[in-house]
């Protein structure tokens, strides 16, 4: 994992990301048609939606990586998987916070307020809080094996709340728009069916680029944590 072929792969992923991000920005900010609200006014702020969905997917990638790595850690008990789980949570948190912040910025012109106690918003905040608690739990444990084990258990239990965020807008009365494969009569529109071709392209490119960004960041952070672990081991031997 620490060898040069990985470094080369990361470099290529970075180049691809630069191109992809530029394309995604162009698709979302320039190429996509403007959204129009019920009064016929253009909604420029809606363009943040592409980043909002993208960061959400990045969070999903991070938390999913953390969940998978935690299960493998519980089966194999190798610290390398614990590092991957941590990297996943950290990247997932960046994505989760990005989703909340971009959503709040969009909510002000769309709903007239930065924040409302909508179930989707509330459950998304809970997920972020749970993973912040995960990092707190890790900080309180000194033995790497114990830390890995307890963190893995917590991560597996915590992941149960991630689907809750998705289903919250279906189960609860939500004004948050539905995205995929579901409908809610109280929600403000269903984007996938309402999107035109230019908007659809912007959305798809944003999702692909942010998923790639999430994967790259997880891999880079994983590598950093592994290096950090090696440095600590060497320092422990020397002192």
């Amino acid at each position: 994992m620490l060898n040069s072929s990985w470094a080369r792969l990361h470099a290529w992923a970075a180049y691809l990301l630069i191109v992809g991000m530029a394309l995604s920005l162009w698709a979302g900010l320039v190429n996509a048609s403007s959204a129009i609200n019920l009064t016929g006014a253009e909604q420029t702020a809606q363009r943040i939606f592409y980043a909002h969905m993208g960061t959400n997917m990045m969070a999903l990638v991070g938390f999913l990586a953390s969940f998978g790595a935690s299960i493998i850690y519980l089966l194999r008990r190798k610290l390398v998987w614990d590092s991957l789980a941590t990297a996943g949570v950290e990247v997932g948190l960046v994505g989760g916070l990005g989703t909340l912040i971009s959503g709040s910025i969009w909510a002000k012109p769309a709903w007239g307020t930065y924040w409302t106690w909508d179930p989707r918003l509330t459950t998304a905040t809970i997920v972020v809080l749970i993973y912040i608690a995960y990092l707190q739990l890790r900080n309180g444990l000194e033995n790497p094996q114990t830390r890995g084990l307890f963190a893995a258990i917590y991560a597996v239990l915590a992941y149960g709340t991630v689907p809750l965020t998705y289903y919250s807008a279906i189960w609860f009365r939500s004004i948050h728009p539905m995205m995929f494969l579901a409908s809610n009569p109280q929600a403000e529109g269903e984007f996938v069916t309402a999107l035109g071709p230019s908007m659809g392209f912007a959305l798809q490119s944003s999702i692909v680029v942010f998923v790639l960004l999430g994967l790259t960041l997880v891999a880079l952070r994983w590598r950093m944590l592994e290096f950090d672990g090696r440095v600590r081991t060497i320092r422990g031997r020397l002192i």
Partner: protein
Amino acid sequence: MTLTSLTPDVAYDPTQDVHLQHYGLAEQLGRGTWLVLRQNLLVELEEFSAVVPMCALGLLVVLVMSLVVESGSPSQLSLAAGVLWGGMFLAGPVGLERQNSGPDVHATMTYLLLSPLPRASIYLGKWLFHCLLMFCTSGVSLIAVAAFLDAPVGQVWILVSVILGGMGFSAAGVVVSALTAAMKKNQGLLAVVALPLTLPLFLIGMSLCRTVWSGAPWQSFQHWLYLILLYNGLSLLGGIWATEHVWREWQ
């Protein structure tokens, strides 16, 4: 120190412990759970070190939160649901903290883990004990909500939801308390780690009470009950699985 000074005051009969192994798994679980629950109850009944602070905190939370609710406002009952569950959930971690702190806890756990009890029964015993603590706290919170906010707390589905909520909170909380108890610097961390995990239950329970108090029929709130049951089932299964790993680490 001579060997005689290590002799316990009460004659120890090892067959009392090992004869559990003659039973089937279900009976072993049942008996083991009862033994752990009984041990926790006996310790609690000596000092009431968990139930009193929990009930006091639950009462205090309801009192403080009731101060901000305007009497007679149309949203009073809706807010009462939040106050009730807030009181229960903020008091819950106190019991968990007491259950896993103190100088004797690690020694007690060591003996429990050395005993032939099934590990799941240790979790189930602790879970049942914390359920009882939560029922006491919920009772106090219910009375306080009825007194301060005129909420009709005697309705069957309110009582059912509160009981199920306490069970779910305990199921998740006991796991988290087992995780944080192994830490050296765990002061205050239990609430930080446990509350986000149990927040979904808080939201579901609060919505259920709000719907019941709005006078809606059974069809309007039955899905909340199913969600609480689902949360409880998953938490219990997750708890049995997780504590097996955690306690192995304690040894």
